[in-house]
């Protein structure tokens, strides 16, 4: 006991760190791998810049992204308007900057909803197996049997085209991927002896699923999520372009591209800059996703 007290006097924080040394070492190793993977670093930088722009949008531009200024329509890029102006005289730069907030919001909500539904369905199906598995997986197959964009379009068209419904529609199309992944992992994990050992201790199914199966099944889902964030943006932009997503004057990138498409030949800047923004961010997420997959791959780790 006296020894314990002696340790306690060293300071709780120090003790905390000491005990968690293996975890900290593990994180250090992860960070090292991260640094040594060039493409993952590039992806990380792009995503950080994207986040930064979304957070500090008002500081980066002095123009209101939705205020019309019909005297200054269709101005080419200049020092006044970096990306030029559109047919209503709105500053394209400012619209692209503020658009990052819209995209970020879409990604955030879609990730939470689709990963939530997907892992829940997948883990329940995989853990219980049998009839539960069959029913849940056939429902998943029904969703998978439709082309994604068409299904998302059908959802938004029936719910009414606006940003919230776009998010709901993309989430409902996207969850199947995570459900399949989580199910495959859950099936693998549930037959492990340590899960039976925990059952032998008297744990409830819900406890086993939440605290033991879920943490072991989540990493491929996270990797897939990062890889799919690009796709989420593309789907949102696609819906926006088709007029089914965010409604004007919300500066959603796909919608901006759509706004400028009739001016594409003469006033190329209206579509080009938001298009580039989409491309760069999608690329960034894909690089990051690939990097995370490599870093988490146990065969490459040590």
């Amino acid at each position, binding site marked *: 006991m006296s020894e314990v007290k002696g340790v306690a006097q060293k300071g709780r924080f120090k003790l905390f760190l000491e005990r*968690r040394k*293996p975890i900290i070492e593990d994180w250090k190793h992860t960070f090292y791998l991260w640094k040594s993977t060039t493409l993952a670093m590039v992806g990380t930088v792009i995503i950080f810049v994207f986040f930064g722009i979304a957070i500090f949008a008002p500081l980066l531009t002095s123009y209101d992204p939705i205020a019309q200024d019909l005297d200054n329509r269709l101005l080419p890029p200049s020092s006044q308007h970096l990306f030029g102006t559109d047919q209503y005289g709105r500053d394209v730069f400012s619209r692209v900057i503020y658009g990052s907030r819209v995209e970020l919001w879409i990604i955030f909500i879609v990730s939470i909803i689709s990963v939530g539904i997907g892992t829940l369905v997948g883990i329940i199906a995989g853990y219980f197996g049998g009839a539960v598995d069959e029913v849940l997986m056939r429902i998943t197959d029904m969703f998978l049997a439709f082309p994604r964009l068409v299904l998302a379009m059908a959802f938004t068209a029936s719910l009414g085209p606006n940003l919230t419904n776009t998010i709901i529609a993309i989430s409902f199309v996207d969850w199947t991927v995570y459900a399949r992944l989580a199910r495959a992992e859950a099936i693998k994990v549930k037959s492990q002896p340590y899960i*039976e050992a925990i059952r032998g*201790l008297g744990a409830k199914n819900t406890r086993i699923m939440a605290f033991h199966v879920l943490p*072991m099944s989540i990493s491929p889902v996270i990797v897939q999520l990062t890889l799919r964030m690009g796709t989420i943006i593309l789907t949102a932009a696609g819906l926006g372009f088709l007029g089914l997503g965010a409604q004007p004057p919300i500066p959603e990138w796909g919608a901006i591209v759509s706004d400028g498409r009739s001016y594409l030949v003469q006033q190329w800047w209206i579509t080009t800059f938001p298009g580039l923004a989409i491309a760069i961010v999608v690329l960034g997420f894909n690089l990051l996703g690939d990097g995370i997959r490599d870093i988490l791959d146990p065969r490459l780790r040590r």
Partner: protein
Amino acid sequence: MQTEVTTQYLIHVKHLKKYFPTKRGLFSSAKYVKAVDDVSFDIPKNSTFGVVGESGSGKTTLGRTILRLIEPTSGTIRYIETDINSLNSKELRIFRRKMQIVSQDPYNSLHPRKLVKNIIGEGLKIHFQLSSEEIYEKVKDILEQVGLREEHMFRYPHEFSGGQRQRIAVARALVLKPEFLVLDEPTSALDVSVQAVILKMLKDLKRDFSLTYLFITHDLAVIDYMADYVTVMYLGQIMEFGTKDDIFLAPAHPYTFLLLNSIPNPDPRIKKKKVIPMGEIPSPIDPPTGCRFHTRCPYARDICSNVEPEMKEVHKGHFVKCHFPLG
């Protein structure tokens, strides 16, 4: 050891059966692997009840079925007065505190992403309302009991050797203060030198915690060291049952005799007895008719292949399932 008259029993197993259905083809009817086929025995309190048999004899299935980790096909399992089979899932979860298992494979039986503290503390969190300090103290105490130290609490399973992992698995079971522990080949994955240390520890823990063991193994030397009673299993059935001395000194079943005969003796001066070739264990899907052992038995006669022998008592407390017991 208690005398015969006052022997108290902890576990009563009656006519226990566990059949696993095999994959059914489109045109064939379902077949069953008879892993445990009509097994009955009683385990005396505070004893070590050994179960030996070759791989495929159903001993692991037996251990897991008694704890209802797999549902039995039929038969009853009683724990003193409680019928374990009739417990509903909630009652069973609560009851699990009293009976724990230590499995064969220490490399896969511990959650790879959890700290030892949480692996051992899990059962406490499930069964008791304790503060994290209380859990910490209990985990620390039990770790010391199994020969590990406080600092091991904050490590992951992969940082330990096989023997240490098996100690952690034992600690996880014992922290709940169970009365009955199934040890399913707890040392078969360990080095021989580590085996001895773990077996010694298990013996000491049995005394300190007044435990009852069901000790499953294929290693007769281990059974000789650990067990008070020995059950010999073959193709899902009990062939012979008795005290350790009955089995080792006066085996009555030809199978037991052959098993004992197959132990290599390190003394070169002892003349090797004639070794009788035994062949492979038959499939438990279509076990032989009559006595299950007749296909490999050197003493088999006509009756053995047709009539299943009854369990008979050759002398007090020593049972054998054979038409022509030895000795």
